[in-house]
C-alpha cells in the first residue's frame, strides 16, 4: 500500500510560484494547499461544495477547491487569497481593501472565499456572463452592470453565518467599475 500508483507529482503554479507537490490522488486541492503547503487562507467550511469558504481562482476562474482533486489540476495556475494583491504586488487587492473599509466580515472565516469569489465574479460580469437575475432579454454578452441584486446573486455561493452580506455587497459595489 501507499505505493506510487496512488500518488502523483503534480506541477502547479500557486500564487505565481511554480511547485511540484506529490499528492495522494484522494487529496483535494484545498487539503494540499492547507495541509501540505501551509496556505491556510482558503478555508474548509463544509468540504462538499456547499459553502464557498474554500473558493480559490483556478486559471483565473473561481472554484470550490474542496471538490477539486489536486491530481487533476496539473499545470493549473492557482491563486488563493494569499496571492491576491494590488498591481504593485505589495498592497492589498482592492477587494480586500473594500472589505476592510466596509467592515464586510465578522469572524473572518468565510472572508477569503468571499473575496476570491468577488474577484472571480467581477471578471465574469466584465466578460458579459449573465446571472440568474440578469434580464434574459438583456443578455447580450456585453459587460453586465453589477447592481446590488446582481452582486447578491453572483456571490450566493459564499455563505456567511455572521450575516455580513449587506456590507459585503457594499464592498463589492465599491470596486465595481
Amino acid at each position, binding site marked *: 500500500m501507499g505505493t506510487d500508483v*496512488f500518488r502523483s507529482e503534480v506541477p502547479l503554479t500557486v500564487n505565481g510560484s511554480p511547485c511540484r507537490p506529490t499528492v495522494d*490522488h484522494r487529496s483535494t486541492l484545498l487539503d494540499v494547499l492547507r495541509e501540505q503547503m501551509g496556505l491556510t487562507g482558503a478555508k474548509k467550511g463544509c468540504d462538499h461544495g456547499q459553502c464557498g469558504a474554500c473558493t480559490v481562482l483556478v486559471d483565473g476562474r473561481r472554484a470550490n477547491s474542496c*471538490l477539486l*482533486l489536486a*491530481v487533476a489540476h496539473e499545470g493549473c495556475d492557482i491563486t488563493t487569497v494569499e496571492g491576491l494583491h494590488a498591481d504593485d504586488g505589495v498592497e492589498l487587492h482592492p477587494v480586500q481593501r473594500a472589505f476592510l473599509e466596509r467592515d464586510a466580515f465578522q469572524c473572518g472565516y468565510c472572508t477569503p472565499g468571499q473575496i476570491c469569489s468577488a474577484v472571480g465574479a467581477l471578471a*465574469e460580469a466584465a466578460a*458579459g456572463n449573465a446571472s440568474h437575475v440578469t434580464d*434574459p432579454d438583456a443578455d447580450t*454578452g456585453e459587460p453586465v452592470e453589477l447592481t446590488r441584486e446582481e452582486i447578491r446573486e453572483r456571490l450566493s455561493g459564499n455563505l456567511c453565518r455572521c450575516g455580513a452580506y449587506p456590507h459585503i455587497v457594499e464592498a463589492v459595489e465599491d470596486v465595481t467599475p
Partner: protein
Amino acid sequence: MKPFRYVRAYSVEEATTAHAGRANSRYLGGGTNLVDLMKLGVERPERLIDVSRLPLDAVEELPDGSVRAGATVRNSDLAAHPLVRERYPVLSRALLAGASGQLRNVATTGGNLLQRTRCPYFQDLGKPCNKREPGTGCGARDGVHRDHAVLGHSRLCIATHPSDMAVALAALDARVELQGVRGRRTLPVTEFHRLPGDRPDVDTEIEPGELITGVLLPAATAGLPSAYRKARDRASYAFALASVAVVLDIEDSVVRQARIAFGGLAHRPWRARHAERALQGGAPSDEAFRQAVDAELSAAEPLRDNSFKVRLARNLACDVLRRLAGPASAS
C-alpha cells in the same frame, strides 16, 4: 475514500479503453458531484479516468443547424455561449438557476446529466437505500420526504433527479451523444434518465464504460420562445422544490407545439406529454394551460408530506406558459 489510480485521458478512445466498462472505474469530469460522493463513501472507485481535458470543450453549430455542446464544456461556459443564449435561452436560464458561480465554473455538461440524487438517505451510508444498496429498503418513503418525487416513483425509490440543466434539455428535445467501446449512439435526453421501477440503482440508460461526449440541441427548437422557472427554499444556491422548462411554439394564435418539462418532481426530468398533446393545435389561453397542466399532474401520487409540489408545479407551469404566450393568451 479509498486509494485509487488516476489516469488522464486525452482522447475519447483512450478514455473508453482505460475505463473498459469495469465496475470500479469512474470517469472524472469536473468532479463536483463525484468527489462529493466519494467523500461520503457512496462512490468508491478504484480507478478514475480524468476526461476533463478531452477535446470535447466546444459549443458548435452543425451543418444541419443543430448545435453540439461538448461533454466537457463547463456549465458556466455553456450558459454564456452566444449560440445557447440566442437560440436556446431556456438552457442558459436553467443552468444559471443551478448551484453557484463556483460550481458552474467546474461542473461539466456530461457530469451534470450524470449527477445523482440529493436524497439524504442515499447520501447516508448508515441508512437503507435501494438506490445505493439494492434490497436494503427506502428510508425516505416513510421518512422525511418533502423534497421527493410525486410522479413516476416506485415502491422502491422516491428520489428525484436534481439537475436544472437536464430539465431544459428535456424540453428542448436534446439528445445525448454517447461513445462506448462498441461505438457511438445518441439517445433523447427524455429517454436517457430512467424511472426507478424495480431497479432504482440504475439512474440512466448509459452502458458500463460508455462516455457522454456531448449534447445535441436540435434545430427544431432553436429560437423558439422558451423559459425556465424554479422554486426553492432560499433565493439562490438551492435545489429545486419544483421547476419547469417550457418551449412554446405559437403561430397565428394557435399552439403548434408546446414542450414542457418539470424538474424536482420525478426520478428524471418529467416531460409533460399529456399537457403538450392537450395544448397542440388549440388556442393558447389561461384556461387551456390550466386544464392541460392539470391533466398532466392528475397522474401525480404525492407522498404524505409533499402534495404541495403538485400545486407548485401547476402554478409554475401555468405562469411560464402564460408569460411565453404573452398577449396571445387570453384569460
